[in-house]
């Protein structure tokens, strides 16, 4: 089967988020970058499905020049080729992102049996790009999926709900947005990384457009005044911890 997996490059934020002085972005000067967590699992799932059913997988991203790094990471674990929709650094909103992806899929010409997305990007959390792409291509869509099994022209997908699972069924081709936990992504091997350098990566520059959700600025949530009470050092602090448990009525 032929699979397309769409990913996003996001900063590794650590303990605190600092903004740029114009409040338009996160100050990433001292940060590393990664594939957004749900999409990292989408990449792994694509590789596993190809290992099981044959075919090939393609990875696509919309992002700055440096997002090529995340495409190479995906190819290092077994994706065959990459499509880079290179942005000029400006953020594309969900409508603009979906439009650019749909245009790229049409231009690419390949027919995909399955299109995988993350349920939502770690940074913008828009919850809609995969769904919009599905409608533009006339495909069924299932979101928030943690298990996929393909049987011929049908796909069964499981979504976790409180206390159990919902089981969805749809015909292929289809769009599925996945959640972390669907698998445990492998680490790229050194030979995998070397191979990835030689795999094909096509780059185009889609035009930025206003899709109707325009960022004005980013802001840190108001911080509550905060004081930590040190109960002690090492195991000698245990009696004070248990006093606290008693105070809170947890003993």
């Amino acid at each position: 089967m032929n699979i397309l997996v769409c990913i996003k490059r996001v900063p590794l934020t650590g303990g605190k988020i600092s903004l740029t002085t114009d409040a338009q972005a996160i100050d990433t000067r001292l940060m590393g970058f990664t594939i957004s967590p749900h999409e990292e699992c989408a990449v792994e799932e694509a590789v596993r499905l190809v290992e099981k059913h044959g075919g090939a997988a393609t990875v696509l991203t919309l992002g700055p020049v440096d997002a090529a790094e995340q495409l190479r990471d995906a190819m290092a674990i077994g994706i065959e080729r990459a499509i880079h929709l290179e942005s000029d650094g400006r953020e594309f909103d969900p409508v603009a992102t979906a439009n650019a992806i749909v245009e790229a899929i049409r231009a690419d010409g390949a027919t995909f049996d399955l299109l995988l997305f993350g349920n939502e990007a770690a940074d913008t959390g828009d919850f809609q790009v995969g769904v919009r792409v599905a409608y533009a291509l006339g495909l069924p869509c299932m979101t928030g999926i943690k298990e996929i099994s393909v049987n011929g022209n049908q796909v069964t997908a499981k979504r976790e709900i409180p206390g159990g699972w919902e089981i969805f069924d749809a015909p292929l081709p289809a769009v599925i947005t996945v959640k972390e936990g669907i698998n445990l992504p492998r680490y790229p091997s050194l030979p995998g990384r070397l191979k990835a350098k030689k795999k094909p990566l096509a780059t185009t520059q889609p035009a930025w457009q206003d899709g109707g959700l325009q960022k004005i600025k980013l802001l840190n949530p108001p911080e509550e005044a905060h004081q930590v009470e040190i109960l002690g050092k090492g195991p000698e602090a245990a009696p004070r911890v248990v006093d606290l448990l008693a105070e809170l009525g947890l003993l």
Partner: protein
Amino acid sequence: MILVYIEQDRGKVNEASFEALTLARQLAEMSNAPLHASAIGSASDALVARLGAFGVNTLHLAQHAQLNEYAPAAYAQSIVEILNAHKPDAAFAAGAERGNEIMAHVAAKTNLPMAANCVQAQTGEDYVVTRLRWGGSLLEEAKLKGATKLLTVAPNSIPAQAAAHAQTVAVDAFTPQLSENDLRARVVARVETASGKISLGEARVVVGGGRGVGSAEGFKILEELADLLGGAVGGSRVVTGLGWRPHADQIGQTGNRIQPELYISCGVSGAIQHMVGAKGAKHILAINTDPDASIMFKADYAVIGDLHQVVPAICAEIRKRRG
């Protein structure tokens, strides 16, 4: 008119819908617009009365045999028909799993922009919304356009509050025209997983471990402490990524949201990804060797020390006091 989708699953209403309804009503009052609700299937008398108390004057009720089991596109089609017939200024849903999904389908069907997980909104020709990014670690102020503004409201951000004056609700039942395409992806079965264990989301005490735990075996002492307190054990994304705990135990943006009386975090650095999941904890006790770890800026109480010594000492002290 402002429309709010009320999410219910087999008779059980998602409470987050009433939070969305509260924000929607604030906007409706500001712009002097009537407040309508929509739901799928049937509505109990209690639900209709509660909607009235929240200021709703009309409930649009979509009824169709094919809506008995969840099909996101079909549910969305029901809302699209209300949009087409009544042209609301805005349509709201809870920023829950289904609310976000259904509203994304509505947005894709109507080609309208949508803002997910809003915590504030101001009306106008364009709306100005404040919405969550990074699971709530960061906020975005954005302009939202569209003939009908589509928004979901982040759960637990706006307390549900009834209106000053209750309304009498007119119920408008209708049968949406569903196409074959609306029914391609649908729920065909449900599986219940009965585990005797107390869930992370419900536990009054959560003992969480991070990289500092060191190994899967290292969690034994955390399990022991949780057992003594009738609590549950969780871990950071590092821990589930390393395979020390199953993903189902993850606390964080891509895992569980916890809301215990006390969260005891052991060897957790306190990355924002993790803290988003622990935000609902009433108190946080951090056990960490590093007094400068990020977790110290979020914790209420701390023990500076090695969890491998501190946690067993706490267990021993609990046993001693209980005799």
